[in-house]
């Protein structure tokens, strides 16, 4: 959403994201997909080469005038943890407030159903 506001104001953007399919639903002009866990759009800590490659790819997309919409996915980059560990590691130690809120709501609905 913010990227569209900035584009509409005449400033080009690149969105670097682990969820490029979702970004594409906003019809954004330049999307760079990265195969990393949440919170790590530019790669792993202290992996300078990986961070540089993502940064350079974002710069390259800015200069790319080949189409109205350009999406590039850096699927060849390899996260240094297995998926199970990475999945656990990116998450907060406590579920976020909205996750707890939705879980409580679900439980209450289930209880209501059982009472009926």
């Amino acid at each position, binding site marked *: 959403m913010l990227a569209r506001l900035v584009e509409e104001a005449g400033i080009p953007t690149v969105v670097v994201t682990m969820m490029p399919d979702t970004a594409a639903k906003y019809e954004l002009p330049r999307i760079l997909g990265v195969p990393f866990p949440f919170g790590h759009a530019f790669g792993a800590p202290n992996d300078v080469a990986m*961070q540089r490659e993502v940064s350079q790819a974002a710069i390259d997309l800015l200069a790319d005038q080949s189409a109205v919409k350009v999406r590039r*996915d850096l699927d060849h980059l390899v996260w240094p943890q297995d998926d199970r560990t990475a999945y656990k590691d*990116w998450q907060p130690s406590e579920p976020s407030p909205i996750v707890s809120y939705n879980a409580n709501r679900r439980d209450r609905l289930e209880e209501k159903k059982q009472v009926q």
Partner: protein
Amino acid sequence: MPVDSYRYLPRSFREGFEAFPIQETEPVRADLAVAITDAKIALMTSSGLYLENQEPFDLDTELDNPLWGDPTYREIPRQTKQQEISAAHLHLNTRDYYVDFNVALPLDRFAELESEKRFGSLADTNYSFMGYQQDGTPDWRRDQGPELIGKLKEQGVHALILAPA
């Protein structure tokens, strides 16, 4: 091959995100007004980074009201050092930001690429907000978005690279 957008999502979220409706049907595109070698670029992250001497993002209000997210942002200068960085985010583990904040806001990498003349220059001021925002992001549309755009223009920024966390 396309990146799997749902690889690290909890399985129970996947269906909802896959079914997330198309939000816009009209493309929008501004073109770079200068050559990339002259372009001033600013970075923006939604990872909740802030400087030790800045006010942290408001997590307490979100804990009281899970449907709310702090809509404010912080200005992060390009010369920021690792030891000046803090982070506040209830939806992410922020541990890695205290090791190397370049994973979310790669100021060091862009400074290196700038010195190698891969692009014009990194903006003096870059931006961070806390990624969980209220449904529809009304504050951003009305207040923070236009304010931020004004700052980018004041600084002569030619392009913005955004990295949702």
